[in-house]
């Protein structure tokens, strides 16, 4: 990889201006009291000091996107016959996601196994993923809800990123992690930064130490499965959940979608939009039957998917990057760590009992 670089604080805006001249740059911006990824406009302030409220998920996986447009055409010869013409719409824009945290960028590694797997390739996802570069900022101070170190990551984790920036007093150490990232280091605003990189590494290691002992969620895979039919357990841990969808929509690793046809007269669009397993409609079948009729079933799905079913299919990899958004943005502070820990500690009733 290229030699490490350094960008001084007072040159950061100029660098972003430069970068945004050639591609769409999404950077955390303060909107009201939230921090969200928004298209960077030259000269604007970026909010790099705190983890964004919403992750950069929509950069690659938009909240809603047109899969195709369609027009119905009546055959003038035979008015009973209607033809449909389809217009596929894959229009990825070269995009730089600037200033996400390691967890936000790493979320797409979970997506990749699903949308870029051996069996299925999702062309919409692939096109966007290919066109997107991540310049990530290492976390030197973590929040109470953070637990990236318990799911195989770290506050300075560069996997999934193309560039890793580490905050220093006077600027950022900038290190390339991939070829894509290396290509962004040509700017004359960047100074050489070999020494800075060494300093940055120390800071990142300290940040990991500050997080304390990680928790081992490995055993959750089998424990959660064993609890599948124990609805008492799930009703208990979901009692306070209000079954909104904040946790899933803010999650960098939640990838479920819904497809609807949005018609207007004789034209329409087939739209793919985020779905959310905390919603009643998630698995509502056309017959009216719903295999996940209560919030307890739905929370079981969310926790089970991340800590059991996904790891079972994907070499033990947990489908959670430990960003803590589902915890700190939950209106009632449901804590996924607590649920998984409870599940791991849960002792099934003695065999004689169960046999009765």
């Amino acid at each position, binding site marked *: 990889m290229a030699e490490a670089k350094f960008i001084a604080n007072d040159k950061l805006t100029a660098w972003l201006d430069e970068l945004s001249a050639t591609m769409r740059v999404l950077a955390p911006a303060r*909107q*009201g*009291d*939230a921090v*969200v990824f928004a298209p960077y406009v030259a000269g604007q302030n970026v909010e790099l*000091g*705190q*983890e964004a*409220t*919403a992750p950069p998920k*929509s950069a690659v996986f*938009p*909240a*809603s996107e047109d899969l195709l447009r369609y027009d119905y055409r009546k055959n003038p010869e035979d008015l009973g016959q209607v033809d449909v013409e389809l217009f596929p719409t894959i229009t990825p824009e070269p995009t730089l996601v600037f200033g996400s945290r390691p967890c936000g960028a790493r979320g797409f590694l979970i997506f990749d196994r699903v949308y870029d797997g051996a069996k299925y390739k999702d062309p919409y996802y692939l096109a966007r993923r290919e066109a997107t570069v991540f310049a990530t900022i290492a976390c030197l*101070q*973590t*929040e*109470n*809800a953070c637990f990236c170190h318990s799911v195989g990551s770290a506050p300075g984790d560069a996997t999934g990123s193309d560039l890793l920036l580490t905050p220093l007093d006077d600027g950022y150490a900038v290190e390339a992690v991939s070829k894509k990232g290396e290509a962004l280091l040509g700017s004359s605003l960047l100074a050489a930064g070999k020494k800075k990189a060494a300093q940055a590494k120390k800071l990142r290691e300290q940040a990991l130490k500050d997080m304390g002992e990680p928790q081992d969620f490995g055993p959750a895979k089998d424990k959660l499965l064993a609890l599948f039919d124990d609805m008492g357990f799930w009703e208990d841990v979901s*009692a*306070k959940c*209000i*079954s*909104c*969808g*904040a946790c*899933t*929509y*803010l999650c960098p690793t939640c990838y479920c979608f*819904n497809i*609807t046809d*949005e018609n207007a007269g004789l034209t329409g669009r087939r*739209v793919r*939009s985020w779905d*959310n397993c905390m*919603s*009643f*409609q998630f698995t*509502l079948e056309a017959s009216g039957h719903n295999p996940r009729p209560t919030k307890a079933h739905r929370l079981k799905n969310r926790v089970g998917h991340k800590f059991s079913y996904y790891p079972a299919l994907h070499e033990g990899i947990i489908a959670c990057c430990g960003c803590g958004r589902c*915890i*700190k*943005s939950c*209106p*009632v*502070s*449901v*804590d996924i*760590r*607590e649920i998984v820990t409870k599940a791991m500690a849960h002792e099934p009733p003695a065999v004689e009992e169960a046999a009765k």
Partner: protein
Amino acid sequence: MTILTQLKEQITAQLPKLDMVIGWERGYDALHATPLFMRSVEDVERLQIGPLAVHNTATYLTGLKNKKVGLVVKGCDSRAVIQLQQEGLINRENVVVFGFPCDGVVDLTKLRHHIGDIGRVKEVKASSSELQLTLDGQEQQVTLADVLADKCTRCRFPNALVHDHFAGAPREAHAASDDYADVQAFESQPLEARFEHWKQEMSRCIRCYACRNACPMCVCRDHCVAQSRDPHWVTQEDAVREKWLFQVIHAMHLAGRCVECGECQRACPVDIPILALKRKLNKEIKEVFNHDAGVDPNAIPPLLSFQVEEENINERGW
């Protein structure tokens, strides 16, 4: 005896007759309380009240229809109980209400303005006038009055308006009246500015519907018009138009029913100030029908009743 001890005694005494009692306990960190479902005496030990116990416990009531439920309520929570009772949405006999005098709750968004990142607060000590926080190894004092939720600074009903048990002595109201000054100030802006404000605010809405599900009066829940698939009233697009449409529907459905507990706004993960919409409609309802939601169990919400001639509407005189 402290109010908390008294509450715990009252709850412990009633618990055998109830499926559960809902209150609050410490959440994942010192700053976040979380709803507590008490089923055993050990659970009661974990009960906490105070300025961090923000959640409206009445939100759970309609989801627990066939259970005997005890609720620990602040004044505003009790208004939701009354409103649900007015509308026949709960059976009051199945609900046991534990009230206490409420000193107000903290708005974490406001606290963020004072101390910056609230995600790293390690310890919190609350007195009746200030919060003492430990953040990044340093102690910080914040005056409670500076970070109280707006609803509390204008609160007329800090003591549960309906209760079967009450701990402590009722306190004086925080304010004598609510003149909707905030709504009036907003209304004094030009129409374009107001529309621009909402377009901007709604643009970051993630359509999670936390605002709806946190609302004690939103009872359609799984059958909400915003998500119904057949008919498909609202598209699945991530567009301001759809998000705004939902907020307007929510506000309209809450006109004269909204008890202004502020849960919709508090629950919003991206801090959209949507309580203003509900306040606007309540202001109109107040002017036209002189009605306050959730105050009198025997009142009928104006939009749920019909009178040939309304007192404040000159229907025949035009």
